[in-house]
């Protein structure tokens, strides 16, 4: 009886991640460093962008994680609302700060790249603007978690906010597309397009991307474990207060 939902059992989750987390962390560190070192030192400079092209190895993976972290939170929130698995909503809570920092990294690295290339740190371009909006959504989601004391109420309300927020995040994405013309280039890593980046940049980018994904996974698992432990500690404290 190997059901997917067995992973929602906190004890099973803890024993499994106890073994898996070190492995994932090591792989994350190796791939992350390998991708970045390969990208920074062993690729040629771009003929137009010079050495600034190398910020690509941080910018693109962090931006992808920033978006997909919200997607993961949406799915985890849905699972919580439908099946009431505590691990699921704790994972969503754990992913939010990581996603927020990734959004910041993408914005900051983009700004640093934009100064020499576009001549400006910031432009009200659709992609930049929608990332700023995504950042605001992360801030709101985290602020709501902080503001509510009862853990189950907080979980429910943040999940509802995540669902509604997702709809409005998508709406905003297309609204800003409509609102201003873009300066940002199109997708450069899509699998089905002819105008992708050249292979010399492509392989280290893939390695760096894998590193970022594993880093995200490791951080989320670690933070989820912390949240579960905090819950257990809280339960023990309450029990002692009742007995003592």
């Amino acid at each position: 009886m190997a059901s997917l939902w067995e992973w929602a059992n906190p004890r099973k989750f803890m024993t499994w991640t106890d073994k898996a987390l070190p492995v994932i962390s090591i792989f994350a560190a190796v791939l992350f460093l390998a991708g970045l070192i390969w990208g920074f030192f062993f690729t040629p400079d771009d003929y137009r962008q010079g050495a600034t092209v190398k910020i690509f190895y941080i910018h693109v993976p962090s931006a992808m994680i920033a978006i997909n972290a919200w997607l993961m939170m949406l799915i985890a929130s849905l699972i919580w609302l439908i099946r009431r698995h505590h691990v699921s909503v704790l994972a969503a809570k754990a992913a939010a700060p990581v996603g927020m920092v990734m959004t910041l990294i993408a914005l900051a690295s983009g700004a640093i790249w934009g100064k020499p290339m576009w001549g400006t740190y910031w432009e009200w371009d659709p992609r930049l603007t929608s990332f700023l909006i995504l950042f605001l959504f992360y801030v709101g989601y985290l602020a709501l978690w902080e503001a509510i004391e009862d853990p189950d109420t907080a979980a429910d309300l943040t999940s509802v906010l995540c669902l509604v927020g997702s709809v409005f995040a998508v709406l905003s994405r297309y609204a800003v597309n409509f609102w201003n013309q873009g300066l940002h280039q199109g997708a450069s890593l899509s699998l089905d397009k002819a105008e992708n980046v050249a292979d010399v940049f492509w392989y280290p980018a893939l390695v760096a991307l894998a590193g970022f994904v594993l880093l995200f996974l490791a951080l989320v698992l670690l933070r989820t474990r912390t949240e579960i432990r905090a819950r257990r500690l809280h339960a023990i404290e309450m029990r002692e207060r009742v007995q003592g």
Partner: protein
Amino acid sequence: MIRLLMRDLILALRAGGGFGLGLGFFLILVTLVPFGVGPDSERLSAIAPGVLWVGALLACLLSLDRIFALDYEDGSLDLLATAPVPLEGLVAMKALAHWITTGLPLVVAAPMLGVLLHLDGAAYTWLIVTLLIGTPALSFIGAFGAAITVGLKRGGLLMSLLVLPLYIPTLIFGAEVVRRGAQGFDVMTPLLMQGGISAGAIALLPFAAAAAIRISLR
């Protein structure tokens, strides 16, 4: 349902529940802008559509926490939630009452304030039309934000943080219609988009808001 609506309207009118407060705020905001950017009439008329829309949005935000907070404090929200009316309907009526007491006065006042900002003559019609279409969305989205934060002790600031990002699409399309109207371009696309957002918000958000209230009252 009609009685619920009347109850909220009468409460807002008689209890001094900030009926004119949003309007006054809107007026002050529009008065402050020329002090900030200078009295140059060309510059003012260029930014007028955006200023009027942002002002309407902030004035709307100001009175949002009154939608549920007062009823939550004196316990009547618990009674209303157990009443034989669907909670979704209650939320919709409360949002509608908020629109009538806040959104509608803003629509009426906006053209007069447009004069202060030298709004372009062609844009007045579109200003009224977009505010008429857009402010219900502001009220319904705001009712959702108010429902999420109703159980919190100091939810006001948090609610602004949650609600304002949700206002972005409405603001973009609303201000875009007025801007295009002022320059004499075609306004149909953003107008339809804004209508779609309003219709969607009115149809769907009462369910989300009612779910949030049920969680908060648990």
